[in-house]
């Protein structure tokens, strides 16, 4: 008897996860119909592969100098993307740079989302705190984004970790606004009043019932923000505020290549293309997700 019961509950649980999966499957199907989004997904997938398997797909260290081989052009023997002014293999540097930009992007977006979601949920739900939190957010908004990041780095010092902190703080106000807006509309819904009438407490309602209803805009925001975060990391590194040489960061690579613009243009163009492709990929994926998650959008 117990065995058959276990099987029964197992099949029940199986059905439950099936129900959960359905939403994801529907969204994915819609997403896969969007060609640009699929292209974005493909690029991001490649970047992830590059980041994960970096040591296995490169023959040279990204930082070891080899002055004999300096400034080899694209398509050279053993260095298909060429080398830079110190003779470092460009392919190795791009691959390891993918690692850095992905990690910095992810960490800063996750940090920013955590802060933004917490502030947004609280200010949307508790009227008394709303004014205070939103004025604080306005204060953050008052600084132009990159300036705010530079200010924070100026205070904390130049390093990649500080870049992540700076970019995550920069993400907080926008995220808080987006979440607050969704909370305001969701908390008026009858099912939230119904949950209250069942005796659920504030934290339960907020985290278990309101937050999942706000996920769609948060997911889209997170994807778009990845693009901004990667671009800003490169921008800050280009200005010398982020990754320090010899770290193979794309923005820093462009900065280093500037002086060789006329003799070895690939030193700036290759990392430039890498940044462009990844930022483009995250942006179109974000667009695709927005369309796929919007129930009012019929893609046919």
């Amino acid at each position, binding site marked *: 008897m117990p065995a058959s019961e276990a099987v029964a*509950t197992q099949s*029940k649980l199986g*059905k*439950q996860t*099936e*129900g*959960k999966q*359905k*939403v994801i499957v529907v969204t994915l199907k819609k997403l896969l119909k969007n060609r640009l989004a699929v292209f974005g997904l493909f690029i991001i997938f490649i970047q992830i592969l590059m980041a994960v398997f970096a040591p296995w797909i490169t023959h040279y260290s990204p930082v070891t100098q080899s002055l004999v081989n300096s400034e080899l052009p694209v398509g050279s023997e053993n260095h298909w993307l060429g080398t830079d002014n110190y003779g470092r293999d460009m392919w190795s540097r791009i691959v390891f740079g993918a690692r850095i930009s992905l990690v910095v992007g992810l960490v800063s977006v996750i940090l920013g989302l955590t802060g933004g979601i917490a502030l947004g949920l609280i200010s949307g739900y508790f*009227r008394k705190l709303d004014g205070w939190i939103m004025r604080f957010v306005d204060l953050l908004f008052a600084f132009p984004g990159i300036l705010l990041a530079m200010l924070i780095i100026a205070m904390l010092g130049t390093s990649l970790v500080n870049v992540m902190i700076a970019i995550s703080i920069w993400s907080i106000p926008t995220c808080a606004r987006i979440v607050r807006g969704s909370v305001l509309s969701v908390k008026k*819904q*009858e*099912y939230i*009043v*119904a*949950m*209250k*009438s*069942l*005796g*659920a*407490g504030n934290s*339960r309602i907020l985290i278990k*019932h309101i937050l*999942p*209803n706000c*996920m769609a805009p948060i997911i889209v925001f997170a994807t778009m923000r990845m693009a901004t975060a990667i671009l800003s990391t490169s921008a800050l590194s280009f200005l010398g505020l982020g990754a320090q040489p010899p770290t193979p960061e794309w923005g820093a690579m462009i900065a280093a290549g500037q002086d060789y613009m006329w003799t070895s243009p690939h030193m700036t163009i290759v990392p430039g293309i890498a940044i462009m492709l990844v930022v483009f990929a995250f942006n179109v994926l974000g667009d695709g997700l927005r369309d796929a998650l919007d129930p009012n959008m019929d893609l046919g």
Partner: protein
Amino acid sequence: MAELLLDVNNLVTKFKTADGKLSAVRGVSFSVNKGETVCIVGESGCGKSITSLSIMNLLPNNGEISEGSVRFLGQELTKMRQDELRKLRGNKMAMIFQEPMTALNPVFTVGFQIREPLKIHKRLSQREAHRKGIELLKQVGIPYPEKRMSQYSHELSGGMRQRVMIAIALACRPSLLIADEPTTALDVTIQAQILDLIDDLKEELGMGVIMVTHDMGVVAEVADRVMVMYAGEKIEEADVESLFSNPQHPYTKGLLKSVPNVDDRNHQLEAIPGTLPNLNEVITGCRFHNRCEFATEKCRTQSPKTFTVNDEHTVRCWLQEVEQHDESAATASSNQ
């Protein structure tokens, strides 16, 4: 004497608005016994829903109970702390909402939502709650309950959703069920089924039920006692037979006349002229006087007191004074 479940005394609910504090409910008193269905009737905006939300203490942020008492199972609810109230809500008293379309969370399965009250109040494990959920769905007459547990609300029909709402509300076997127009959004055949269901479950669980409605047909079907509200005040209260056979207040009479009669071909629907006054209108005297065809000078200046028609039947209308005066005069003269 039946056991007293809920006793509302002189309840006043006010809303803070740009025009100052406005009263939506003005001194309403009533009681509900165990196993009894009390209907609150009145047109839209007369304070029915606010009365029921006041009992649950679920008023919108700008609303507050400013006077009166709500005693439930001997406990005073208006002075209770939020966390104590939460233990009662969904456990001892539960509510069903008007729109089954919006009262279920669209991002969760039916199973998730039915497990929630069981987890909150009964501290059941996932598996126990799941089993209990299936049982509850079966009880409210939902076919294939195992399958429904993993479905989302958009996959169910309106009647089915309302059954799910009822199952969720009844999950912890409450002693009081407040149903805020539970059938308004449903078509007529489903309406009858849902009303029967609530009635059966009431018998089974010995609940008290407060049914908020504007449909006199529903009242006739389910009510034991009826309370008629107008512009935030209780204007008439009676047992259901007495109210239908012998309505006293002109507003109640108007409500009964505005129900279509299918048996009588020549039946003319009579609407009550005018509309409900705004919350910020200052009205002296009876709040119904400017829509009442029998209004006298007294009605315009003095607020009517409560007259007793019989043990179960009270009404707030100055016309009673005249009638009761006439009656006593008549009995006096016949005695002579």
